[in-house]
């Protein structure tokens, strides 16, 4: 029915290829499987050295209960939300504004400014570790939520601006001319024309930024110290110190931490993929 997009190889070769894909997939998912298995076991079973066996006693529910009763995971989880949600919101607002201006206005230094945003993405974030920590200490924000929020917003806005700028630049020029001819101010144009048309892009970007910020471990340990502000990623590390032998609880906590990004990714998957191609192909 459809034209075949690629020439078909010999069946044996195809079988080999499929087998290879399966092998890589198993290797890739093995750690995740280990975490899931561990999270379902009792501490005694792990102590007995039965790492790769099927759980003799299914203990997942109890393990999850212990996370909330015996550890501070719930507090870390709230901390993560307090850090991640404002960061995502601020990045979206800022990158929509910068993207709109960079895409629609021809001013002196536009190209230079845009290249700075793009170029900033190529810098490894780690080289800024000492300066950023010193900066946060000297402005008195070290070990607060703001330290992480400010850093994540500053760092993610670069990529987000590139993304939004390309997306807005792909909108037809006449749409903006029509809005202008009808007396819409730049602000009204953005609110009534640009933002509604960019909803898929904003959704995709929200997921990306959410995942980046939520999963961040490096900056969490660089910029925070006390348990009151620590996000879940850094908090997980704490569990190990307090509960050296309770790997089943650490594994269960890990699963718990991974839930929000995975959930959001699946919820917005359609937007995510459509948004990415839209920004990439037409930019």
């Amino acid at each position, binding site marked *: 029915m459809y034209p075949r997009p690629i020439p078909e190889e010999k069946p044996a070769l195809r079988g080999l290829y499929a087998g290879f894909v399966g092998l890589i997939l198993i290797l890739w998912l093995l750690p995740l499987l280990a975490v899931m298995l561990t999270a379902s076991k009792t501490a005694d079973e792990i102590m007995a050295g039965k790492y790769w066996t099927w759980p003799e006693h299914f203990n997942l529910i109890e393990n999850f209960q212990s996370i909330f009763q015996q550890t501070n995971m719930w507090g870390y989880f709230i901390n993560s939300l307090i850090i991640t949600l404002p960061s995502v919101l601020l990045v979206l607002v800022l990158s929509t504004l910068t993207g709109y201006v960079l895409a629609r206005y021809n001013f002196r230094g536009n190209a230079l400014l845009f290249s700075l945003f793009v170029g900033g993405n190529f810098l490894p974030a780690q080289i800024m570790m000492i300066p950023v920590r010193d900066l946060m200490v000297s402005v008195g924000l070290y070990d607060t939520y703001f330290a992480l929020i400010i850093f994540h917003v500053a760092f993610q806005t670069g990529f987000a601006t590139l993304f939004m700028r390309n997306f807005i630049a792909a909108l*037809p020029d*006449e*749409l903006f*001319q*029509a*809005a*202008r*001819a*009808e*007396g*819409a*101010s730049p602000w*009204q144009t953005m609110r*009534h*024309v640009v933002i*509604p*048309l960019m909803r898929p892009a904003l959704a995709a970007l929200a997921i990306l930024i959410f995942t980046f910020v939520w999963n961040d471990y490096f900056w969490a340990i660089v910029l925070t110290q006390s348990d009151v502000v620590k996000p879940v990623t850094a908090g997980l590390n704490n569990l190990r110190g307090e509960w050296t032998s309770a790997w089943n609880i650490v594994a269960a906590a890990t699963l718990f931490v991974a839930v929000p990004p995975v959930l959001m990714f699946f919820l917005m998957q359609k937007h995510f993929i459509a948004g990415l191609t839209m920004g990439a192909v037409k930019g």
Partner: protein
Amino acid sequence: MSHVQLIDVDKYYGGYHALRSVNLSVDKGEFIVMVGPSGCGKSTTLKTIAGLETISSGEIWIDGRNVTREEPGDRGIAMVFQSYALYPHMTVAENMGFGLKMAKRPQAEIDAAVKRAAEILRISDQLDKRPKQLSGGQRQRVAIGRAITRSPEVFLFDEPLSNLDAALRTQMRVELSTLHQQLGSTMIYVTHDQVEAMTMASRIVVFNKGIIEQEGAPLRLYHNPANQFVAGFLGAPRINFVTAKLVSLRDGVAEVALEGAATTVQVPVADVGDLKTKASLTLGIRPESLKIGASIPDAAISFDGKVRLVEQLGRETILYVDGGPLATIGSESGTRNFTIQLGNATGFSAGEQVKLSASTSSLYLFGPDGRTLSRPKPIIASL
């Protein structure tokens, strides 16, 4: 006092001089059509009137106000775009009411304006649809409706029918003319289609390379083009141009020798300036002025040719005739055949030998600078 006035408008894009001192004055209620080839400055002129393009120097006045520095939304204009430029996420009603909503007018007023515009354009049953559910013609109606709801001083159209198919274009042409009569508003319309220009305009403005070549009523421009460019631009099929040389000039009659012809042709001329003998001229003959057979009493020119191609259009026939040594300066397609338009169906076929002739009064003569030298013709003429 004219309704829209452009005074010495210049526009540069970097080093490119897009508009060269354009002066244009439009009266209230006129339907002005600006035509010209791509890049001639017609769209740029429209956008400067709209305020979507700034001008390098000059002034623009609309309804007695100097709007040169005003924002498009404050100028009292409404624009209709070639691509319709409808907002895809809004319904038809929301699209049409957008301008009024931005002006923060009460919802009741917006609804009334949208309803009235929808009735005029007969799209009242489409108001809840989104643009992607509409056909091209309906979309263009919505775009026009969006302009109507704002009750502007001046309507600006930027090639609004170019994206429609031929049948729909003819229909929308009639509708736009009707709309103009109904609203009585000033309309400025840009197109590269000379049929739209001829049929809709109360006045045509012909642009070329950033200047206005000529402006005037459609028939006046057709019968009395100021220069070779206008003669070549208006009229379909295109006028036949033949290279010629001036042999003599006496008593208001120029005797010219056509390239590739044995005999000379006499053309009555008006003001010729200081034209020298052997000056390089161009003779123009409209396709409908060329007759077949030897039936013209005052034939100024006649020659033999061979039919190369016949186009039967039903009530008219277009012949492409190879004039042997006598050839036109050629068309875009590269052929140097003469185009002849006959007002009826004929039995001609390719390969046939024919005798062509044209009367003295139907000939145009253009000088070395392209200026028209031949005498003005009566506008309502049965040539």
